[in-house]
């Protein structure tokens, strides 16, 4: 998921989510960057409203956290 996290950081910092920026972030984190994944990620995010997608998760923030508990 490191590629997705990298995109999320760029989204918060307001930088463009392009191949160069993603590669820089992942490089800095010591990730052995695969160019095709970066490309694919940029393409996948092209028409997506990231803030909206993130917000949808926020609707169930703990859902994730509480998964185990909820199952019990």
């Amino acid at each position, binding site marked *: *998921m490191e*590629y*997705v*996290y990298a*995109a*999320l950081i760029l989204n918060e910092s307001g930088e463009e989510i392009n191949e160069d920026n993603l590669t820089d972030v992942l490089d800095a984190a010591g990730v052995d960057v695969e160019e095709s*994944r970066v490309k*694919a*990620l940029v393409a*996948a*995010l092209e028409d*997506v409203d*990231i803030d*909206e*997608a*993130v917000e*949808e*998760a*926020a609707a*169930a*923030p*703990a*859902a*994730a*956290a509480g998964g185990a508990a909820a199952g019990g």
Partner: protein
Amino acid sequence: MSAEAERKTENLPQWKKEEVEELADLLEDYESVGIVGLTGIPSKQLQDMRRDLYGTAEVRVSRNTLQVRALEDAGYEDLVEHVEGHVGLVATNDNPFTLYKELEASKTPAPINEGEVAPNDIVIPEGDTGVDPGPFVGELQGIGANARIEDGSIQVMEDSTVLEAGGEVSADLANVLNELGIEPKEVGLDLRAVVAEGVLFDPEDLDIDVEAYESDVATAAARARNLAVNAEYPTASTVPTLVAKATGEAKSLGLQAAIEDEELMPDLVSKADAQLRALAAQIDDEEALPDELQD
């Protein structure tokens, strides 16, 4: 002792003077002073209570007129109106709320006598009275208890309130209660009012709802957690939630954007499957669907 107080006591006989002085010392030595009702406490029990309170609070019993004088001299005018009936002074350095809790906890049940006023509802509890069949069943019924003979003894069929709080205990009721060993009174030092560091507290003020405080603590903790997580302030207790939130966000984005990530694939596949099924659910024609999608 102030000059004014000196003057007030000068007309009293010597023993009274000494007693007022003792009371004055008591009032001066402690931060909080209150009035406790002593009604119905046998003197032996009072001795025990005073001993139990040793180190926490001091109880002094004296003539009411002398108590009033000592209170007035010491500036506790607010308490004077509570000096009525059989009362004593209580003095403590403890928190008055704590004092109230301790006094309430030390109260013990006691029988109630004919002519006394019920301090609370008097209830004959449901169950076997253990009394053999006989005229007692009539006595029970007479005071309003739902009683009858069953299985060879007198049974009370349901919890029966036989006198409401404030009602006067009849001779019949006192007899029945005595026979059953029911002790409806709570006897003990009954705190009527306290002045702590200048502030007057009534028993209603002092009767704190511990559960409400407990719920407040939980609320406060929940709010702090919410704030820390929502403001993304990491602490040992909020980091797991923040991490979960971040991974949830990444996952949500990954699923929405159909990002080709190994971790996301199982969810993407199930999302696709769910979409397929949702679409299939809108299709009426069986011809159009494979068997596994038909209802």
